[in-house]
Structure formats: C-alpha cells, structure tokens
C-alpha cells in the first residue's frame, strides 16, 4: 500500500475536485452524503479498518474493489509475523521464554510471602516490583493493540479489525493474574494468525493457549475435580450460543471430555494433555458418544461444535452485527451462515461474502463508534501512536469509558451497539480525549471531505489549535 507521502499530489488534486459536491451536503449526518463514493469510502475505511487515512482517494475510486483487495492483503499479512517495534518484541517471545519468566516471577512472589517483610514494605513489594514482568507484558500487549489499530504502516487495518473481533469473541481478561503475561502472545499467535483462516483452527488454538486455559479455569479441571467454566462458555459463547439446545448434562459431559487439558509452562509448549488427569469413562455430548481417545477426543469435540449449524448462525450473526448493523438483516445472516457451512468455516470466504453484500453498503445500516473505534480512529487521524503519552491517555480513556483494553472481565466480550455506547455523559468524555490528543496533532485536513458543511464551517471559525480537537470530537466523526 503506497504511503501518504507518495500520494500527496494525487490527494491535493482529488480534494480540489471534491470541493464542489461536498458543498451540497446538509447539516445532518444522516443526510445523503455528497457523493456515494465518499460515503462508501468512509464506511469501508471505518468498518474494515478504523478511519480513512490521507491515502483515502485511492480507495474512493472503487470502495468495494478496495475493500476486497484489503481482504486479500489482510489474509496475506496474517500469515506473516507482525511488525512489532523492537521495544515490544517481548510480548511475542517464544512461549517457553514467557512461561519461564512468569514461573520465576511466581517463585519470587512465593518466597517473598514465606519470608514476609514488615507491613508496608511487603505490601509495596507485592503491588509493584514482584510482578513487573507480568505488568509490562500486559502493558506491551495493550500498546500494540493501539499501534496496530491506528497505523497502516505497522498493521493492515482490516487485520487489526479482525483481530479485535475475534479477540472479543474468544475473550480473555488481563486482570486475571496468570493471563497477564500471555495476553500479547495469545492475541498475535492465536487470534491474529487465524483471524481469516478456518474457524475450527482458531477455536482449537484458543483452547490450547495458556491465556484461555487460565482464564476459564480449564487448566485446573481434571477427572477428580471437574470445573465446568470453559466447557460451558465454549458452547454458550464460542460456538453454539445460549438456548441452542444443549443441557447442563452436556456441559458436564464436555467438561469431562476436556479433563486433562492443561498448561505446560516448563517445556514451553503452553499446552499439555495430562493423560492421568483425563476422565476415561464414556461420554455423550449432544447425543454423540465419545470414547476414551485421550487428547484427540477433546479435539474432535471442539471440531464437532465448530461445525454445527448453530455455530455457523452464531458466528454469522456476530459478524453481521459487528460490521453491518446493530440489528443485522436476517437475509444477510442466513447467507453468511450458509457460506460458513459450505466452506467449513473459512473466515476469509465469509468476510468476502459480507463485503460483497449490498447490506454492507446500504445507507440505512448505520453503526455508531464504540469507545475503542473512536479512540483508534482518532489516533489514526493523528498519524498513529507517537509516544507514551498517547498510549497512557488512550488506555485511560478506554478504561473510563467502560471498554478497557483486554480488560473485559467476562467471556461474553463487550457489546458494540449504539444502545450500549451512545450515552449522554459518555459522549462528552469523548470530547475530553479528542481535545487532549489534538494538542500534539497536526490538523487532519483530509477529513474535511467527509464532514458536513455545517460541521466544517463551525470548526473553521476557531483558531488552529482548537480545530483538530473539534474535528475529532464532532458528530460526523462518531459514526462509522
């Protein structure tokens, strides 16, 4: 993808040409946009990425063709390791290295507990020094999410979007102690790597990663002490969906099938099947008998769940809700589910079908930015993450807005609809973030092409140092 610089000349020409049609826009954001391509470009860039970049005119020629190109580019990128900045390389270190550092951290903490220091000193140790490694790993993972969602030179924007979507679908919570050091590795090697691959490969990779094994307590479940947590959410959230016909008995059977699935931190493989902890009696899941086939038994069960029609429907519904409309058109959901089934869960094929659908481009299918959408798009307009302050301010904003990075505690993931996020006082807090970010940002004049006349004219009355913040805080910038 050409950079902004090489396109500067093209951009100037195109902007000049667009001044006419743009001037016809009305004051309301719901009004018909100046040209179909501008509206479609905004939609494609904001939904299949986070925001248009200065290079947007390249997409505007044919937003649909551009979007399909992006899909292929995102798929290709998912097959390569991400371009992590050197200071963040640690979050994607080999699993064995992360596990060893984590083990060492735990040992230190344990021995500190056995030889307690008096009062405050011990408390301070526990709060800070001892868990420096885990904390820095979690911070690094969060920083990478912000960098990758806001800078096309670092990450393909659609791949960043798909990573967000699947992370949220297979959510883990960074506040749960042992998840912390692994969250970056999980995001890169499980989610990003399979985000446009086959669904069942993604699901299996997540099932075997320490982040998920720890998060939903699977690492601790065994034949003598069953823990139903992961088995339940695997059916309720990751695959079939609630009320899709499974029973409490099925939850227990699946939990029994997965007994022995645990972490292997010592040898650095992350996952271990502990034969001796496996329940070797027969099980019946959703009417299908499972014998005692050790690890293959669980793999088979997970693939079986991934291939069920209820799963196809659930994945299709979630994708259409995320990318098209809060209440997605049923016909679109049905088509996407059919593609999912026909291609055995080929997520790239499902996304292609979504991009080619008329529903994706239909004006009536509005979406309102979540706090994360808003923050990533504002950062992108600012040219990406520039320094630590950008990261600190953005993570603070997200936490306060109710969508903390990797910080959704429960496995359902955050919601993405306007009903959840379009809340009065919260809207005004977006302005705080925008004005703060804008203090160090050159005016993203290219965005003006997408804004209504009323917005542009009102902002033009203000001095330069206020304009950028107002652009990012404007109603026009809140929709995607």
């Amino acid at each position, binding site marked *: 993808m050409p950079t902004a610089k090489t396109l500067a000349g093209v951009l100037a020409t195109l902007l000049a040409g667009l001044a006419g049609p743009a001037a016809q826009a009305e004051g309301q954001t719901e009004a018909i946009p100046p040209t179909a391509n501008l509206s479609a470009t905004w939609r494609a860039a904001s939904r299949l990425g986070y925001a248009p970049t200065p290079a947007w005119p390249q997409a505007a020629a044919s937003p649909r063709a551009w979007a399909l190109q992006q899909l292929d580019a995102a798929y290709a990128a998912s097959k390569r390791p991400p371009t992590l900045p050197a200071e963040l390389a640690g979050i994607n270190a080999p699993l064995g290295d992360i596990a060893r550092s984590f083990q060492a951290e735990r040992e230190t903490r344990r021995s500190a507990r056995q030889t307690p220091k008096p009062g405050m000193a011990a408390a301070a140790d526990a709060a800070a020094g001892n868990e420096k490694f885990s904390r820095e790993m979690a911070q690094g993972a969060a920083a990478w999410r912000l960098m990758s969602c806001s800078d096309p030179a670092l990450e393909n924007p659609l791949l960043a979007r798909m990573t967000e979507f699947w992370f949220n679908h297979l959510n883990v919570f960074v506040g749960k102690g042992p998840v912390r050091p692994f969250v970056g590795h999980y995001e890169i090697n499980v989610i990003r790597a399979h985000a446009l691959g086959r669904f069942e490969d993604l699901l299996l990779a997540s099932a075997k990663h320490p982040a998920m094994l720890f998060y939903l307590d699977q690492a601790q479940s065994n034949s003598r002490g069953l823990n139903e947590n992961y088995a*339940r959410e695997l059916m309720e959230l990751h695959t079939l969906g609630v*009320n899709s016909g499974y029973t409490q008995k099925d939850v227990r059977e699946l939990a029994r099938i997965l007994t022995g699935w645990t972490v292997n931190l010592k040898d650095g493989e992350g996952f271990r099947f502990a034969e001796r902890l496996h329940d070797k009696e027969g099980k019946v899941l959703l009417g299908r008998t499972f014998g005692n086939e050790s690890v293959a038994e669980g793999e088979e069960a997970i693939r079986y769940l991934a291939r069920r029609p209820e799963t196809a429907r659930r994945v299709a519904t979630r994708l259409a809700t995320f990318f098209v409309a809060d209440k997605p058109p049923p016909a679109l959901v049905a088509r996407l589910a059919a593609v999912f089934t026909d291609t055995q869960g080929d997520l790239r094929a499902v996304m292609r079908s979504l991009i080619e659908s008329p529903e994706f481009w239909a004006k009536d299918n509005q979406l309102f930015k979540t706090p994360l959408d808003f923050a990533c798009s504002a950062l992108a307009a600012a040219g990406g993450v520039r320094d630590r302050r950008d990261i600190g301010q953005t993570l603070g904003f997200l936490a306060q807005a109710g969508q903390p990075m990797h910080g959704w*505690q429960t496995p*359902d993931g955050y919601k993405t609809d306007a009903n959840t996020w379009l809340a009065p006082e919260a809207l*005004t807090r977006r302005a705080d973030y925008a004005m703060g970010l804008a203090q160090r940002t050159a005016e993203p004049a290219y965005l003006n092409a997408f804004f209504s006349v009323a917005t542009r004219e009102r902002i033009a009355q203000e001095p330069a140092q206020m304009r950028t913040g107002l652009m990012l*805080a404007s109603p026009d910038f809140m929709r995607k």
Partner: protein
Amino acid sequence: MNSNNSSSPRSLQRRSLLGIGALSALSALSLAAPGVWAQAAPGLNNGRLVVVFLRGAYDGLSAFVPYADKDYYALRPNIAIAAPDGTAQTAIKLDKTFALHPALAPLLPLWQQGVLGFVPAAGLPAPNRSHFDAQYQMEIAQSGKTSSAPGWLNTTAGIGRAGAGGAVALGVGEANPAILAGQAAAVRLIPRGQSAERTGVLANDKTRQALMDLYGGDDKLSEAFRQGAGSRMQSAQELTEQRSARAEKMAQDSKRMADRMLDRDGTPANLQALNAQMLAASNGAADPVGLQLDAQHLGTLMRNDRKLRLGFLSAGGWDTHANQGAATGQLANNLGNLARGIAQLRQDFAEPGDVVVVMSEFGRTSAENGTRGTDHGFGNAMWLMGNRVAGGRWHGAWTGLGQLNEGRDLPAHHDYRAVLAQVLRGAFAFGDSQLAEVLPGAKWDKRLDGIFNKA
C-alpha cells in the same frame, strides 16, 4: 427442616380476615391482598429504590452461612466459612440458622438495628446457568425472554410520568446497563470512580460553546450530547462540593479535637498524629474507593436532585470457579468491598421509604468443585435494607442443603420478581396494575408478605 420465618400466625390471621387465606400461596397479582400502602397513592414519591447488582453470580452460601447445617460443611470441605466461635476467622452469628461472612462485619449493626434482612433462596423461575442470559432476564424482569425489552428500572421510572422531563433514575458505573435501558424515562449515567467529579473540556467556555454548536441539531446524537453536557456539569459540581464539604468537616473535627486536648493538659497536640488517628478510625480510608465511592456519588446526587428516585450500582468479579477462599481470599475481599458500599448507602438512604436491594443472576453450586471454587448454580440470597424492611431476620422458605435442585444447587423457593414486587409495593405503594407493568407475568408470593413492616 422446613421453616417459613416470616409468616407469623398473626399475619396469617390477618390474611384470612381479608378473605384470601384459602387461596394458594402463589396468586396472580390481580388477586394480591390490598397491602397497607395501598391507601397511599401509588407513585415514586413514596420512597426511593437502589438496586445493587452483583454480576457474575456471588456465592450467597458464603455471605449468609448456614452454619448449623451439617451438609454445608460436608459439601464444602475446603471453602466453608467456619461456624461462629467469636473469633475473626469465623462467621458472625445472626440467628440459629445463619451467620454472616466475617468480611461483612460492617453490616452487623444494620442487622441488629433491624433494617437489614434477606431472602436466602430466591432466583429465576427455572435454572439458567448462563451469566449473560440470566442477568439479562433479571434486568428486563421477564424470564425465558432473550429478545429486546426495556429494563425494569426504566419501566419503573416511567410509571406515572408520561411525558415528564428530567431523569428519575441514576446509574453509576456501567456504560448503559440493560436494567436502565428503555424509552419510558430518561436516565442519568455517570462513570465509576473519581472521574465522575470532573468537568473536563466543558469547563472551557469557548470549547463548550463550539461543541454545543456542533451538536446543535435535533438528531438523537446531538440531543444526547447536549443533555450529557448539562448533566455532567451538574454532577461534577455537586460531587466536588460534597468532597470539599467533607474535607472541611474533617479539618474542623481534628482542630476541635486538638483544641480540646490543648484545653485539658495545656500542651499543644500533634495535629499530624491526630489526623492519622482519625484516618485509622475510618479504616484507613481517607477517601472511599471502589463501590463505596460509587455509592457515595449515588447518594450525593440523589440527595441533591429529589426527582431522582431510582439508583443503580453494580459490582463484578463474583464468578469464583477456582480458589475462592474462605474467611480470607478473593471472595472475602470482594465481600468486604461490598459491605463498605452497602454501609455507605445506608448513610444516604435512611429515609422512611428508602429501600436497597442486592441481587445476583443466580447462586453457585452448594458443593465446592475440584478447584476449591464453585460452579454455576440456581437459588441465591437477595438482600433488603431500609427502615420499612422487617430486618434482623430472614424471610421466605429455607430447606437447608439436604434437598438440592438437580442434586447440586440451592433451590430457588421464591421467584426474584416476587421479592421485587414486595419491594416496589413497600417503597412506592405500587398497586397491581403498576406491578404488572414493571414485572410482567410475575405472581404475588404471600409467603413473603412479612418482608416489610406494617406501617
């Protein structure tokens, strides 16, 4: 053991006189006995209601410990709370059946004053072990329904207020909880923690004006922004004033104490040491944090704006599948935070018609699992606090842990909506038609009729 703690012979007799004693305990709302408050005109002005939702299914069997039940200790060899023996590591005796978790000690005075009670085994009409589904159904007060519906606090806020402006309900913490969502009434939502006290860029006149102009339209987004700007500035101002008033009072108090000491022995007191002493007396918490701070914000804003009659708070982190701990540990820490929040609420919600309800989507398994935690169960304890609450006792049926639902869970002897119906009648004198509107399809449960004191 099968007791029904709240049905005294006297109240049964009263019911008989009213001519409904012969009906089944569960009657449709239209058959409900005319309560004492039926004489008061139904309406939100009769009281205030605060709902505290514990997301993730808190372990009620650790909060209200059935210490006299042998099964409890057999089912939970590692995580049971030890029976009361007067020490800090054991439960605190409430009566011959239940004891409080030691981390809930701040609530003991409320129990003793008779303003805190609980229903030990309430829940959804049928087990639903999905957190999200069960929470949603409890927030819309309709069981088995997963499609979109208004939250019951929103419906409540709309009762008798057709077309009236201004918010009646205030939520602290969540972006837009389902329980408050709906078209019946406007709600006010503020964030958790100290950020609720800040005005941000709205403090700058020029910036505020530009933003108000940009959001000058009559579309939903613009209207929301303008409304949000107004309420945020008001919230921030009120909360800041409250904070400085508190700081000033503390300064005066310590000066007074210092003056007194000076008078007594003629030597100047060490002000710093005094301040430290006062801090220690308030459990070392100079400024409340967590749920307590949110509770304080809720109390302040609802005190200043008397139109606000409904409050909502939530706390997460209750899904203790592994290593939940016992007298200490993760659950104990969470309960301690909750106790401080509830005690704070009592300070601001002690008017005659005020009621605080604590609820959670379901209970946890009666037995501990293989990882010293508990899995998703069914029945659970609901708490009630207020001057009209018949506190210092528990209400409804309790059958111990000998007979379990599906062999694993505490049964839900009472529909949570039947408890809420009692609450809405107790706080707002709601009649049958209002109850049917807020809690569609719910049945009146006479076995709970003693929850509220007769006026």
